[in-house]
């Protein structure tokens, strides 16, 4: 069957124009739902990246009393040095360096920095355990917690676990909303096509009577749905790129090392964008095809 290209372009165009309101509504729903789908994937990717960084060297930080006596400090250092089975590496952070880090961390809040002097900050040992498993990290923490001169021992695994749980929950929530919206956009596209077919039912009736094939009748409607899906997903990808850029910029501005590990690499964003484009256009095509087939019997 020779499909007349002019005919298809003309019909599709007039359908899109005739139903501007519905077309815009379905495109916007596609945009919103795909942005949400993309966001939830970006959140997941970010958490993944961050945890990989952390798990590469789960750190145990032993905070000492600011006024710790040198012999107590040496005792702890010796004990860390001796513990070859549990401790892979460790580093001493004295009060001056702690102050530098503090200034870096709170550079946006000068009043905080002013209220602090190096002498009140606790010196600390940053410890890289041999076995990053949560159990052995906890064991190490218990070991040093009650030593003389130790103020507190914190391990990153607590932070990570809370963070993972929180972001996991948030991204599940976002993903759920996105799934609902994706269904909504499918139904909206379906409905737009149905309305378009209803508006043109007399033409379709004549087409069937003079012997136009079902595909010939269907194709302009399917292209209409395809265009809605395509435009929607293009807009969604564009807004996702912008959102990610803003997010990454904010993270870098803060200069917080921990959070910047959440930044998602451009490659990941591209993968997600391609997935969204494919998803959006497939939704548009499939649901308009279903609508076109269901309502072709005039």
């Amino acid at each position: 069957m020779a499909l007349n290209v002019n005919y298809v372009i003309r019909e599709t165009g007039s359908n899109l124009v005739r139903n501007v309101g519905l077309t815009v509504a379905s495109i916007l729903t596609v945009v919103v739902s795909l942005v949400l789908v993309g966001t939830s994937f970006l959140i997941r990717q970010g958490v993944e990246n961050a945890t990989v960084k952390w798990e590469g060297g789960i750190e145990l930080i032993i905070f000492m009393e600011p006024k710790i006596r040198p012999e107590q400090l040496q005792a702890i250092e010796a004990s860390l040095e001796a513990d070859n089975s549990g401790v892979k590496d460790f580093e001493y952070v004295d009060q001056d360096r702690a102050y530098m880090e503090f200034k870096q961390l709170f550079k946006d809040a000068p009043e905080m920095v002013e209220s602090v002097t190096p002498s009140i900050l606790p010196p600390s040992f940053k410890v890289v355990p041999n076995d990053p498993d949560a159990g052995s990290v906890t064991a190490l923490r218990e070991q040093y917690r009650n030593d003389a001169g130790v103020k507190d021992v914190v391990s990153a695994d607590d932070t990570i676990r809370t963070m993972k749980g929180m972001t996991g929950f948030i991204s599940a929530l976002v993903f759920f909303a996105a799934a609902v919206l994706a269904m909504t956009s499918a139904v909206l596209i379906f409905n737009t096509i149905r309305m378009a077919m209803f508006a043109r039912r007399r033409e379709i009736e004549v087409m069937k009577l003079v012997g136009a094939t079902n595909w010939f009748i269907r194709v302009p409607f399917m292209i209409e749905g395809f265009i809605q899906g395509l435009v929607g997903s293009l807009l969604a990808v564009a807004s996702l790129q912008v959102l990610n850029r803003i997010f990454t910029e904010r993270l870098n501005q803060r200069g917080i090392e921990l959070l910047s590990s959440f930044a998602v690499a451009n490659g990941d964003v591209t993968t997600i964008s391609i997935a969204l484009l494919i998803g959006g256009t497939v939704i548009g095509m499939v649901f308009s095809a279903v609508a076109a087939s269901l309502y072709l019997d005039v």
Partner: protein
Amino acid sequence: MIKLENVTKVYRGDVVALKDATCDIQKGEFVFLVGPSGSGKSTLIRLLNKQEGPQAGRIFVAGKDIAELSKWKVPFLRRNIGCVFQDNKLLSNKTVYENVAFALEVIGRPRHVVKTQVPAILELVGLAKKHRNYPEELSGGEQQRVSIARAFVNRPLILLADEPTGNLDPATSVGIMRLLDRINRTGTTVIMATHDRTIVDTMRRRVVELDRGTIIRDQVRGVYE
């Protein structure tokens, strides 16, 4: 050309539209279907271009059993069967020319065919001068001529007409019948359902009379009653 063998069509609620109808129509014949409303004339026409299927019996069009026709082939059957209706089914947003051209465009005919065929057929039905008008700017008779032009522009083997003069006054009807007669003389088989006694009695063609779904009369040079 057309052969019905014991065709029965029952609608939901046990409405018998056709009962055991058998009929053989040769190529180039002109056949009137007569009978009161609800006697099964329109059903017969809808069965012939497979808008519906029968419950029992076989229908042959151009030697092929159309009941066995797979769904995707139905459009190709319809390209050989032109249809004219009482309410001409013209598209009000298209001009006369566009309405007729539409029938060729949607079956994928190339543009040069459309450009030569449409003016020729509009000349035949006597509307060459009105090709730029919209249907609502035409009289009822002219609208029906456009509808016939659209049905015939693809030169089908068979032309089905379901009360084409139903909405027209007698004088206009005569014009339409002259046109259908001319089309019939080109070798096209014409089947026309009608209530119009004068037309049937004047034309003296084959008459098939239906009553409550049964063919009760099949006369070669028949009259209305």
